[in-house]
Structures are given as structure tokens and as C-alpha cells.
């Protein structure tokens, strides 16, 4: 069996998705809490506590409140985190400690289908989290409708992109402790510098150029535009960026997992 033989992906990947969904349903009440409460905490801390100091922010020529500036960023961060962590820690535990993938590989499922099911599941978690958060944030009147609804399909694309990235790390790290490295070098800087809590334009020019390379910058830009109902050409750049990210990282994730597991 060469790698190409197992690259054929049938709809059976949904079985792996179903497995994860079955597990999720058992703890859904707890899993629902973070996306429900997290935006509340942030909006309270930043919206009430910090916005007094910050005042308003210039966005696309108009002044907006600090809370409406950061609320869409919280959505983007959650889209990133849900898929990334699910396909990093979650998938790693299933692969390495629980040997769930080994058991699956003795069935008609192919490895590519298993990985696809995992990544689509990660993206599903992003969609669920984004939807719940959208509801909470909407209650504060911070989302423009109907444009805001587009955040739901966007969460899926972002989920596939960041989930594939997490899965690539799962395919290459020797042990679970080393996940700290991509988190420290990659996730944390993105969380802070992707136009999340202050505009990218506030950074020095060299840093702005770096920030444009980061995927979260584009995702934040997209969620913010859709939340505020402001459209411009940078949205197209953003969506193309995320799709290319999917097209590169998804096959790469399957490749690294293949190298790791097929022996």
C-alpha cells in the first residue's frame, strides 16, 4: 500500500465524525459553557473595564466602540482555538494514548478518512462555538445582520484551516509536551498581534508586514467586517488566504500522519 492508495477519501470519514459527536453529546452541557461564558467575561473586562481608557477606535473611516472592535476578534480567536486544539491535543490523545486510530485502521476506514473525519470534526467544533458566541454577542447588539450570519460558514473554513494546522503538528511532535512550542511561538503571538485587541496599523511597519502573514489576521479582518457589515477588497484576500491555507495544510496533515502511523 503506497500512500496514494490510502489517499482515496470516501464519505466514510463521516463515521469518524459521528464517533466524536457521540462522545461530545455526553458532555455537551460542559462543552457549551466556554463559548457561552468566555465572550461575557471578555466583554465585561474589556468593554466595561478597558473601553473607558481606550475610548473609540477608527475603523474604516468611522468611529466604533472598543467593545464592537474586540467582539468579532473574540469570535475569530474561538474559531482558531476550537479547531486547533481539537486536532492537536484531542487528536493526539486519541492517536497516541487511546490508540483509537489503530483500532479504526483495522476496519474498512482508511487513514486519510480518519484524519479527514477528525479535521471536519474540529471545524464543526469551531462552527458550534462561533454560533453560540454569535448569539451571546448579538444580545449586546454588536452584530450587524444579515451579514453576520456569514460568520457561520466562515467558521467552517477557518476551522478546516486551523484544524489542519493542528493536525500537522500532531503528525510531527514526538510527545505531547512539545505542543507548547507551536502554542508559544505561533498561537500566542497571533492571539495578541493579529489585529485582535488593537488595530494592526498601530504596529510599526515591519511588524504590520509580519502580521499580514499570520492567518488569524485575515480571519479577524473577516469576522470584523461581517460583524460590522463593512465590505472591501481585503475580504477577498482574506478568504483566498484561508482557502489556500486549507489546500496546503490539509494534504500536509494527511501526509505527516501517514508517515507517523503507517509503518
Amino acid at each position, binding site marked *: *500500500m*503506497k500512500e496514494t*492508495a490510502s489517499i482515496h477519501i470516501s464519505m*466514510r470519514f463521516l*463515521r*469518524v465524525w*459521528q*464517533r466524536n459527536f*457521540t*462522545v461530545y453529546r*455526553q458532555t455537551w452541557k460542559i462543552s457549551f459553557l466556554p463559548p457561552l461564558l468566555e465572550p461575557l467575561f471578555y466583554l465585561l473586562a474589556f468593554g466595561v473595564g478597558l473601553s473607558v481608557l481606550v475610548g473609540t477606535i477608527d475603523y474604516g473611516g468611522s468611529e466604533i466602540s472598543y467593545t464592537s472592535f474586540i467582539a468579532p476578534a473574540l469570535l475569530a480567536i474561538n474559531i482558531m482555538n476550537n479547531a486547533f486544539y481539537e486536532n492537536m491535543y484531542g487528536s493526539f490523545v486519541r492517536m497516541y494514548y*487511546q*490508540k*483509537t486510530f*489503530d*483500532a*479504526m*485502521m*483495522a*476496519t*474498512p*476506514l*482508511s487513514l486519510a478518512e480518519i484524519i479527514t473525519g477528525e479535521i471536519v470534526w474540529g471545524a464543526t467544533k469551531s462552527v458550534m462555538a462561533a454560533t453560540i458566541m454569535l448569539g451571546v454577542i448579538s444580545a449586546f447588539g454588536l452584530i450587524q445582520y444579515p451579514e453576520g450570519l456569514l460568520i457561520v460558514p466562515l467558521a467552517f473554513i477557518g476551522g478546516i484551516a486551523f484544524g489542519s494546522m493542528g493536525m500537522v503538528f500532531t503528525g510531527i511532535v514526538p510527545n505531547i509536551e512539545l505542543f507548547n512550542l507551536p502554542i508559544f511561538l505561533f498561537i500566542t503571538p497571533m492571539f495578541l498581534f493579529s489585529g485582535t485587541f488593537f488595530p494592526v496599523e498601530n504596529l510599526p511597519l515591519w511588524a504590520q508586514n509580519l502580521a499580514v502573514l499570520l492567518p488569524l489576521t485575515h480571519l479577524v479582518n473577516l469576522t470584523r467586517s461581517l460583524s460590522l457589515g463593512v465590505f472591501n477588497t481585503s475580504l477577498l484576500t482574506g478568504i483566498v488566504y484561508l482557502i489556500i491555507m486549507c489546500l496546503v495544510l490539509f494534504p500536509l496533515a494527511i501526509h505527516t500522519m501517514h508517515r507517523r502511523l*503507517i*509503518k
Partner: protein
Amino acid sequence: MMKQKHNALNGSGNPVINARNLRKTFGNLIAVDDVSFQVFPGECFGILGPNGAGKTSTIRMTYGFSPMTGGTLEVFNLDITRNARTIKSRIGVCQQENNVDPDLTVQQNLEVFALYFNMPPPEARTQALNLLKFMALDHRKDARATELSGGMMRRLVLARALLNKPDLLILDEPTTGLDPQSRHQVWENLEELQTKGLTILLTTHYMEEASHLCDRLFIMDHGRVLVEGKPLDLIRQHVGRDIIEVVEPSETLRAFMRSWNLKHEDLGHRLIIYVDDGNALYHEISKDHCTGGCIMRMATLEDVFLKLTGRELRE
């Protein structure tokens, strides 16, 4: 101890597994080197060998888990390199680890696993409940899989391997780490499956298990097959019928052995003598040479195994 099975299907028909010149290398390490074997319908075939002999590598190739480095392998007359998915849908596999799904209950473990075979949920449920009954696990169906004892977990893995009503059951060390009670329970389950005509391929390093279950087997070491045959035949061919063990043998006994040219193994503090009829000899030895204690017993597969693979520790 040794059980002769009467299976009309033995040795007849197209082989369920036809492996020719299997080879598996990991970098410079040759794990499996030119291994050929056939398993026929209704047969229980065993792969024996010490740790690191290449048993698991061989068996993993036969269920399409690891790609072969060389050789050809047909299961159900289908080439595994091209029909892995079809083959896998018709076999049940019990891997070495108890990789039950810790996030699910016992019953869910089976129902979710049935999904991987595209089994419709109502059928999956019926099948799951039947198998839980067969494996005496129905009273624990709502427990978390991780709450089960080692023996129960093993039976759950076995039940899982039977979900798709396989035509071939592949077991990698099915009873390693189990207590005697659990081991016998698993053997009983496997014997029942055998009488229903299920073809079984298993690896083990328990000789008792092999003589108990296997119609035919081969012993392998360092990636190669040493001997192949029926358990009893192998014992007769390689060690004879009786074994006499003498503790702290004297020099005169050693000289006696040499002068009569008797098949024996000298372990220093222990002398093992292989004979076809040991009564006369045992009488002789126990009369004159039995200073440190001596016994006569029936030869077992373990004697064959140790004779062929040596007594030094592995790993």
C-alpha cells in the same frame, strides 16, 4: 491437554490466507524475512515466537495495517495491496493492546465501531447486544469501557472484532496479561467460534494456548520460520514423547548420556533428556543418578519452542 479437532474443512478448499515470501524491513532492521504460509477455511493457525521474532509484523501485514516490503499476500483470494478495504470489511481484528474507546460505554464501543463498517444502527444495536451476551458482558453494558477489568476489556475487544460477522478472525496475542480464569474464558469463546467454522489466525507466546487452540502453527524467530506443522507432530519430530529432567546431574550421568548417544540438553544445573519412551531410562536414572531430584513428564510444545529458539533472554 492436547486436543485433536475434527474439522471436515481442514486442509481443503482455497486458502483464506495465502502469504508468499513476505518481507518487512524497518530501515536496516529485517523484521520479517521470507515468510510463507497458508491458512485454510475453518482452521486455527498459530504464529509462535519469542518477543521481537516478527509475529506482530507478519500479522499486521495480513490485515492491511502495514504495507509489505516484499512478497505477495492474498486474503479471500484478493490481493491485499489492491483490495485492502474489501478484505478489511470481512475480517475481525483483535490487536495486541486493549484499544477500547475510553470515552464511550461498553455498548457504545460496539455500536460506534459498527458504524465504521457502515452497519445500519438498528442492526448494530442487535449485534452489539448479542455479542455482549456471548462474551458475558451484558451486565456491564452501561459501564465505561475503562472501568472494566483486564479480562473483560479483552472480551470487549474480541466482541468488537466479531461485530461485522467476519470470515476470518485475526488475534494478536489474545490472552497476554490475563489471569488464568480470564484466559480460559477467552479460550472457551474462541473454541465456540471455531466449532462454528470461523477461520482464525493468532499469534501467541503461550505454548499452552497454541496447543489448545491451533490446528497448525509455525514457530518463527529473527523474522524467519523455523518449523511448521501440527502441534503434536512438531513435538514428536523435534523432542519425542517424554522428557526427563535431572537437577544437578552428576558427571557419571553426563558420561552415560554421551556413551549411549541420547538426545539431551545440558543446562549446567539441569539436564533435559528427550526420549520416545522414557520409562526404562527413567527407572535407570532414578535408581543411580537422581541425587538432586528428577522428574519425567510428557513433552510439550514449550520444549520444542525452547529447543528451537534457544533459552537466552530476549530484549
